[in-house]
């Protein structure tokens, strides 16, 4: 299904004398087709509905992430939301390999007559109906001019953005294919596109991802907004935990002479207590993969354990139940470095 779209694209974009209007119309067709396809294949998942909404608004960054998810769907991997924003590489290379031909031809053409093309585009822009596209092409030509002096990989991205100014799928596919070790950040409208601010933005997004993850872990973080408040809560919580550990170890020291410690006994009972919390909350258990970044291979499906397993240990107080719930909560974000 995807290949069909791609081949059509490559055919039409090879002919450079297609006017801008025609290209616009074609892209709208594409979008409609995509929307149809997505609506057919979507199983009412909220992520795909997001895709439909954001297709209309031409939001670049979300399109990138949503398109990657769509690719995952199309290739039969299934929506894998817990994998975070790191799409499987084979999937992308498969679809974007078809993009290489139009990209190359466009790049060659661009390098030969860059300024003339820019002028031609500006002239052709008069009959354009939509002013939004106009602003976008302006910005994209600027991007092209800036990135032309930079490295080849990045200049490809810039060039494809300018040349295929209305077909975002090719540029996205090409940029994904080129040099996968770079973190590709799409500049939104009206935002600076020089390398420093892009890097800054990527850094900020990483940080906000991590803050969201911490929000899931630390109870009570949802009510406070803003980084400072959340950091406060986190500090409080860590101090609380540390104090409790101290207190418990003191208690242990007091009890120590009378301890009847059998290792197997302790572990069994401890696990019963441990799982009793989770069973009491009646949630399905899916442990966070990103918590242990070295252990990415493990498939961590631990379903609910037999609730009949009564334990001699009482379930701890309500605050602890919620905390251990948060231990097992699925967080859709992964820390992929």
């Amino acid at each position, binding site marked *: 299904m995807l290949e069909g779209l791609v081949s059509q694209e490559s055919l039409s974009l090879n002919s450079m004398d297609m006017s801008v209007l025609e290209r616009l119309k074609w892209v709208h067709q594409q979008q409609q087709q995509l929307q149809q396809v997505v609506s057919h294949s979507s199983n009412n998942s909220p992520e795909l509905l997001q895709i439909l909404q954001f297709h209309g608004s031409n939001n670049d960054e979300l399109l990138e992430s949503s398109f990657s998810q769509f690719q995952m769907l199309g290739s039969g991997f299934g929506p894998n939301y817990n994998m975070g924003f790191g799409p499987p590489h084979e999937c992308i290379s498969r679809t974007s390999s078809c993009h290489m031909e139009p990209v190359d031809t466009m790049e060659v053409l661009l390098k030969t007559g860059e300024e003339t093309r820019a002028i031609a585009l500006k002239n052709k822009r008069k009959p354009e109906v939509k002013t939004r596209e106009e602003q976008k092409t302006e910005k994209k030509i600027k991007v092209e001019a800036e990135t032309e002096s930079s490295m080849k990989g990045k200049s490809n991205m810039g060039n494809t953005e300018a040349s295929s100014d209305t077909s975002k799928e090719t540029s996205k596919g090409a940029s994904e294919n080129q040099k996968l070790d770079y973190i590709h950040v799409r500049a939104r409208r009206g935002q600076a596109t020089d390398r420093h601010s892009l890097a800054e933005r990527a850094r900020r997004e990483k940080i906000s991802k991590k803050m969201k993850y911490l929000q899931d872990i630390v109870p009570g973080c949802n009510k406070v907004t803003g980084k*400072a408040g959340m950091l406060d809560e986190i500090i409080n919580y860590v101090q609380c935990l540390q104090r409790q550990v101290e207190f418990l170890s003191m208690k242990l020291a007091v009890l*120590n002479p009378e301890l009847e*410690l059998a290792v197997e006994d302790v572990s069994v009972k401890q*696990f019963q207590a441990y799982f009793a919390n989770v069973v009491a909350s009646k949630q399905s258990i899916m442990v966070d993969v990103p918590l242990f970044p070295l252990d990415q291979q493990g498939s961590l499906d*631990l379903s609910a354990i037999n609730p009949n397993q009564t334990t001699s240990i009482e379930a701890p107080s309500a605050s602890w139940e919620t905390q251990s719930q948060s231990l097992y909560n699925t967080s859709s974000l992964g820390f992929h470095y």
Partner: protein
Amino acid sequence: MERQIINKRKRVFSLQPNKNPNALFTRRYVSHLVPALKKINMNKSSSKTNHQSFEKTVKHEVDMAFALSAQEFAWSRFLQQKLLSSPHDDLISTSSSPSEILERSSKKQGGEKHQDRDEEGGEIKKRLKELQKLLPGGEEMNMEEILSEIGSYIVCLELQMIVLKSIVQDNTS
């Protein structure tokens, strides 16, 4: 009889229980802590019964077990180093009391009306410094690393809490 069947159907165990990272941590922790405590018990009878030093040794063992059970993280390595170099220092110290934090938050509310953006950057930096003090090895990390390490630190602290509670409860009830 029916209920048993239903419960049997509900019971699904993972094929690879060892890969569950939380269970892994707890198992390691228990396997480190319990023998250490037994050892302390045995040694206690022979050596002098000084309550404070005894507490310290228990605390030391607790921290040691904590650091050893989470080898994947940077903070655990730092903690280990600290423990090995200075065994009887008070490692987990509460650097800022809750009253200080309340002060800070009230200041923030007052100052919000004036310079919002300027204050915010400074506030965040203050808190990050606090966090750095709390996290073992936090002094040498930058902001991103701290944020990622803190997540795992918190979860491991919680797990440690569960283990200690269950041990204590086992022996009090």
